[in-house]
């Protein structure tokens, strides 16, 4: 599904540069649910951004679904992002002047689907996250948990191969966090591959595999016994 080999990334800071990723090797199979952990500055978000094609690596290989991701033009990257990836962000990143349904249907617009089809698919995914009756509401009228669920529905709308979540529970309280995690586990049970960046141990414990990053290298990579979020709710 996903294969990363000797990945390096550094950011220029003034005259010198900060070496953030120092040769990362990572393989993720279809159907896995992986937590990427690490303290701030460990490079975990950078790694996720590179996987999400939001950022480019300096060197190393990255193969996604047997497609080498390298030297992408903006246009190609846009197509790949739309086809392969679904993003879930800590700050939700919904478009504030579009209602829930329009937000969910937006990736479908970029897939070139007809309006009617977009509406139908959007509604289907909103139903899946249990927010159909909130379809006409603007993000400002939704709670944090609801916003994140709309964001998840949006990430799912384009039927991506890989879900990328950057601190998906970072802005939520514990109960809501577990609800979101329970939902993500459910998606994983249905076969979705999910990558979650987090610094919370309890969230990581709800995944099937934990990768720990420290100073730009993988410190630990082990399978864990998944804690079902449903037990906590």
């Amino acid at each position, binding site marked *: 599904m996903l294969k990363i080999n000797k990945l390096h990334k550094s950011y220029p800071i003034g005259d010198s540069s900060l070496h953030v990723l120092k040769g990362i090797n990572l393989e993720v199979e279809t159907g896995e649910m992986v937590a990427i952990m690490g303290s701030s500055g460990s490079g975990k978000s950078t790694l996720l951004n590179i996987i999400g094609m*939001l950022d480019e690596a300096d060197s190393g290989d990255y193969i996604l679904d047997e497609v080498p991701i390298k030297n992408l033009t903006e246009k190609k990257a846009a197509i790949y992002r*739309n086809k392969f990836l679904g*993003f879930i962000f800590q700050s939700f*990143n919904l478009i504030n002047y579009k209602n829930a349904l329009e937000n969910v249907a937006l*990736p479908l617009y*970029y*897939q070139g689907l007809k309006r009617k089809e977009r509406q139908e698919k959007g509604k289907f995914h909103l139903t899946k996250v249990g927010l159909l009756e909130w379809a006409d509401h603007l993000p400002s009228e939704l709670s944090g948990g609801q916003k994140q669920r709309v964001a998840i529905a949006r990430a799912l709308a384009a039927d991506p191969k890989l879900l990328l979540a950057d601190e998906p529970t970072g802005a939520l309280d514990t109960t809501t966090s577990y609800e979101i995690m329970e939902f993500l586990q459910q998606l994983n049970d249905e076969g979705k591959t999910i990558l979650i960046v987090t610094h919370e141990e309890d969230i990581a414990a709800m995944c099937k595999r934990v990768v720990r990053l420290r100073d730009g290298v993988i410190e630990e990579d082990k399978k864990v016994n998944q804690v079902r979020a449903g037990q906590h709710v």
Partner: protein
Amino acid sequence: MFDIDLWREIFQSINKNRLRTLMSGFTVLFAIMLFTILFGIANGLQNTFTEAFGDDATNAIFIRSGTTSKASNGLQAGRRIQFDNNTFSSIKSENDDNIEYITSRIFKNVTATFRNETDNYSVRAVHPDQQFIEKTSIDEGRYINQRDLENKTKVIVIGSKVEEDLFLKTTALGKYLNLSGIQYKIVGIFSDEGNDDEERIIYMPLTTAQQVYGNNDYIDQISLTYNPKLNFDEAIAFSNKLTSELKKLFSVAVSDQRAIRVRNRASESQSVSALTTGLGIIILVIGFGTLIAGVVGISNIMIFIVKERTKEIGIRKALGAPPKSIVFIILLESILITIIAGFLGLIIGMAVLKYGGPSLEQYFIKDAAVSLNLIVAATITLIVSGGIAGYLPAKKASQIKPIIALRND
């Protein structure tokens, strides 16, 4: 570009971000409104100029005589030069190609009486061509014609003010007017675009005046218009040629400036038209300055809008928006706002000119208005400038890396 979904996106963005739309729209509206009003006022100013100097034909030459200031050919200085019918025919026959209209003139002052009304007027005795040189328009009846000249008939054509003064409310055409003791039949009434004094003139046939006042063939002045095809330099050369011909005819010294006086309207009208051109250039500079200020305003707002929308652009890119669609969405929004606001500005500006224009006439601004051509040109300028103003920020926005855009919290 004709994708309905794209337009839906744009209208939603415009509709949901009213303050932003209003701000950028207002800048454009104001610029175009000012542009229209300034242009209109300047046009009005130009109209006043053209009218003030446009009374007589601009290609007119007036020839008068004086007394010699220098001795020549054995004749003494101080000799009075008197034009007569021979002078007229010799000018006419020798310069036939270059002359459009030509007339002799005799000036007299008369006391005109009709029943109990009496007043003093100037009489101009002329050839029929005078009508075209003075740009006189006949309201009723006819002008002096060739037959009048041949028969020396006692007919006159009076200005409409003369009719007003002497005939009160009754009509003057066909009646007889007493000019210093002699009865003349009124055959025409004219009006003149110049001032009121011009309409207090009485025209009569040249030959009639020569017979009545002195029984000679003297004339006071020769007026002519030259062939309009002559350019400025040729016109000046023509009047110089006339001058030297006349000096030769009357044995006047070449350097004598007083005996023969030739006044060419070409040199006067050139300075007037230079003034109007200068005015036009100032108008253009001001007008386009305003327009450029407007375009700069839109550019600034577009840069601000792109900044404000950076995060949205990042989200859209993360969801798979190709760079082209980002450019389109921002560019089309910019052009749309520019067009609508520009048209509103144009309409408001024109309304201001229409309803405020008449009260400006006392400040020498007449018929302040803008032409259709200008409106079309301004509209095209608007669309193009809206496009340019929107394109650069839009292009920049499409190149923002999504990761940077998303970090923008």
